[in-house]
């Protein structure tokens, strides 16, 4: 029933480049597809689905950031701001022009890509720390601009209300409809990234990451590809922003502040840089962390803290655990959750004859 590899028998380039080279992978992907697309929306209650929706949105953003940080090795602490660019672009399109989602989502992405590429321009001259600080500046400047320029922010409280997206004339109001809507974009993001990384552009990204000088010598236009990385990554961020806006029903710059940039960076690092599964694991982990922390504390926290303190304790404990985990992963397992998964997979790949 299950095929096992016993060697490399590929005879054509097409087979070598196949997205899913092993039949096992195809079975696994099909099973996961059925589980997440058919069973999950039927079996889960409203609350679980809303948590799953949050995870799906985070997955899109984390995959996008991974293109920049994991594959091209450029740092960005400004992704939260790029998300807000996408969110506000889409919100204006939706409220003023009544744009449907299939215009609003790509438009938000494209606007974010434009801004992201602009921010990426200094990456020609500066790298590492300087780039980190430049993107940090971009984050703060974009935040300030949205907050203070009223034709961007849409007036009061800098927030714009947005109705639910409608697909084929049906308004997506319930959690499971939203779930399938978001799942569509997650699958697009995963497949798109897989194909991007195997293409000429993706190979150029990886070459720049591994040795930028050597990449330039073999004829890769570094400046152009760094800008591409920024633009593509910001496109994903913009789409994430639009999806957040649809999910929350409101575009608000407070949803996209510096801590959002940082938690997306944390997803990519905790999950594992430079892999497709890594950011998915990271997004799940970082999204669930505050929810699980709150759940655990609400049930057993009463043993350690007075009930009145508990509401104050939870956010600070969440911060502390979040920071501690980032440091822990960096020191103990720099390749992240993806590495742990690969260890498990490689063990079972040859099990029970692992010699």
């Amino acid at each position, binding site marked *: 029933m299950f095929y096992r590899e016993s060697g490399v028998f590929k005879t054509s380039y097409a087979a070598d480049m196949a997205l899913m080279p092993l039949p096992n992978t195809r079975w696994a992907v099909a099973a996961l597809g059925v589980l997440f697309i058919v069973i999950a929306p039927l079996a889960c209650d409203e609350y679980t689905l809303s948590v799953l929706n949050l995870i799906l949105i985070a997955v899109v953003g984390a995959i996008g950031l991974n293109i920049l940080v994991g594959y091209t090795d450029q740092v960005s602490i400004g992704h939260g701001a790029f998300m807000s660019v996408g969110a506000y672009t889409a919100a204006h399109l939706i409220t003023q022009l009544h744009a449907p989602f299939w215009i609003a989502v790509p438009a938000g992405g494209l606007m974010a890509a434009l801004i992201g590429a602009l921010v990426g321009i200094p990456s020609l001259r500066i790298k590492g720390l*300087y780039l*980190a600080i430049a993107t*940090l*500046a971009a984050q703060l400047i974009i935040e300030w601009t949205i907050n203070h320029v009223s034709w961007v922010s849409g007036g009061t409280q800098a927030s714009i209300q947005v109705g639910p997206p409608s697909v084929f004339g049906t308004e997506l109001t319930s959690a499971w409809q939203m779930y399938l809507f978001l799942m569509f974009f997650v699958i697009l993001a995963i497949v798109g990234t897989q194909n991007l990384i195997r293409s000429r552009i993706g190979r150029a990204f990886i070459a720049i990451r591994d040795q930028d000088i050597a990449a*330039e010598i073999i004829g890769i236009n570094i400046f152009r590809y760094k800008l591409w990385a920024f633009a593509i990554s910001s496109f994903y961020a913009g789409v994430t922003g639009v999806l957040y806006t649809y999910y929350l029903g409101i575009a608000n710059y407070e949803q996209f502040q510096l801590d959002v940039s940082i938690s997306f960076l944390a997803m990519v690092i905790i999950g594992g840089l430079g892999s497709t599964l890594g950011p998915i694991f990271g997004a799940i982990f970082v999204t669930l962390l505050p929810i699980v922390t709150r759940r655990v504390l609400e049930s057993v926290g009463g043993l350690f803290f007075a009930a009145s303190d508990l509401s104050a304790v939870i956010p*600070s404990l969440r911060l502390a655990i979040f920071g501690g985990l980032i*440091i822990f992963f*960096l*020191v103990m397992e*720099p390749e992240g959750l993806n590495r742990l998964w690969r260890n498990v997979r490689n063990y079972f790949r040859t099990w029970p004859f692992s010699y």
Partner: protein
Amino acid sequence: MPELDLNFTLLLISSGLMIGLMYALIALGFVLVYKATDAINFAQGEFVMFAAIMAAAALGANLPFWLAAAIALGGMIAFCFGLERVVLRKLLGRPVISVIMATIGLASLIRGVATLVFGAGVRAINLPISDEPLFLGPVMLPPVQLVGAGVSLVFLAGFTWFFLKTRMGVAMRAVADNQTVSMGMGINVQRYFALAWALTGVVSALGGVIWGAMLGVDNQLPLVGLKVFPVVILGGLDSIIGAVVGGLIVGVVEALAAGYLDPLVGGGTKDFAPYVLMILVLMIRPYGIFGRRRIERV
């Protein structure tokens, strides 16, 4: 546009200069670590808050001021030694984003633990000086700022002397310049890495007491740390004199922006103007005014 009033401008510039010196003190902590170990500390603001909380807690227990300051100082030195040993030593030779992320994680860890242990309320640090502002002609000088600026000046001069004249300072400069050659010359590089972090602890403790006295100690205090980046980029990442000049520029720019631009655009330019200035510097002269020019053509 508000009328250009000479007295008002003088007031803004003088307070900007004093705030700038205090920024320089915090930026110095960043520069010390970057110079010696090439590590980037995104948690500088949290270091300052941590020190301020320790001092405030000690003062809250009715300890005399000098003892509270000493506790903050000792606590920060111990903390930084430990940090270097447990976390940063393991990250040597890793890509730059690892260290950035580690300090970002550290920032959130400190913020979380500090509010867990000491509570989230605002505490005060009362310096043993009067609150009466001094008047120098038309210019009003709050004593807190004056003391802060004075302490900053003394320590900035002290560190300059340390790096130029003492054996340890020269060794630290050697480590910053070339680690391999320093090892060859018999300098214990690891020890000087630890020393650099400890010096950052000293600077952060001072900054914590001063900034805590000026702004009050709560979880808004780390926002001061965000000002470090414009300061060090302006001045040059590896230059002490650059930290001072950058601090002064940022202080004055910020005060002028708050005085003249805020009424026009409705607030917030204080935090915004230094970053615009910084972006300009990054575009034109990324190594800053006094930084060492490293040629990297990719």
